């Protein structure tokens, strides 16, 4: 059962991040936007870590995070944003939405692997 959910509208990013995590022994599922992410999270209660982009069509990552804490009432899953956005206002919104951490792209797997492993356990 998947422990990590990678959410990004770019297949390149999904392949890169999920591929890297799978190569390092983690069980990973992917979603293409916020709406898809919510659906996949609802269907897989075993997911402990969500890694998501902010800018996506249909539903952006921050709205998805807000809905995870709100509608889905899931307070336990860890959410990390992986995005080009770096403005303090965005990060504040993330913090208020219950996001645990923020990574500014590009993704450097080696630097974050240990933390990801910890958050996914």
């Amino acid at each position, binding site marked *: 059962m998947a422990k990590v959910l990678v959410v990004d509208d770019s297949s390149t990013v999904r392949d890169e991040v999920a591929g890297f995590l799978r190569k390092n022994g983690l069980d990973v599922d992917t979603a293409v936007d916020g709406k898809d992410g919510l659906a996949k999270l609802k269907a897989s209660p075993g997911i402990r870590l969500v890694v998501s982009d902010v800018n996506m069509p*249909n539903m*952006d990552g921050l709205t998805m995070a807000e809905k995870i804490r709100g509608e889905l009432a899931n307070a336990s899953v860890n959410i990390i944003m992986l995005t080009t956005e770096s403005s303090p206002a965005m990060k504040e919104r993330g913090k208020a939405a219950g996001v645990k951490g923020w990574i500014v792209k590009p993704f450097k797997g080696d630097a974050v692997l240990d933390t990801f492993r910890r958050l996914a356990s």
Partner: protein
Amino acid sequence: MVDQYVIAAALAGVAWGALAGLFVHRWWYRRRAAAQQQTALDSQNTVLALAEARHAAEVRQHEQQARELHALVDTLRSDLAQQSVSADEAREALNALHLQKDEWLQQATRLSTEAGRLRHLSATFERWHEQMISLMAQNHDMHAKNNELSSIVRHVLIVSLNASIEAARAGAAGRGFSIVASEVRALAARSQELSKSYHDSLNRNDLITTATFQDIQAGGKMIAASLASVEALAGQIQSRLEQAKT
């Protein structure tokens, strides 16, 4: 016997003399005492007069001081009255400030709520994004149809060329046909021009549509970010006003 009368008379005389002397002495002494008393009385009167004068001066001084004290008391009384008025005004102002602060707290709360509500505008932009995808799909469709048309027109050109060749081969009999073939070729050429121009218009349309929708999408995010800052600021004002609620 005369001696006795003389002695008696002498004695009487002496007695009368002594008596007279006594009277004179007493009279003189009384007079002196009276004069002395008078002097004493006079000096006492002087002392008394001095004392009275001094006393009067002291009384005047005391009266002066009393007047000054009264004046001071009056000044203090009027100061107190003024300060009382100021204190009342200050109290009123403080009450007004309290009311204002409550009002501001209400406004800050309202501001916070509004900003929070407007953040959900992003749902509108998501809707527009769906429509953009649909429009671009339609554009894509038009491109495809145009390409098909273009291909048909090319085909028609080839057919008309073939027809002209056949007509030429048929000689005089094929002249009528040859004219028709030329007209068809001319029409096909115009169609091709139109198709190319249409292709160009579609490209222009694609770019403008994309640019416009991207502007809306990015603009929406900009507004959402600004509103988030406003919401945060309003929240700060709210909490600071609530803290000062003593």
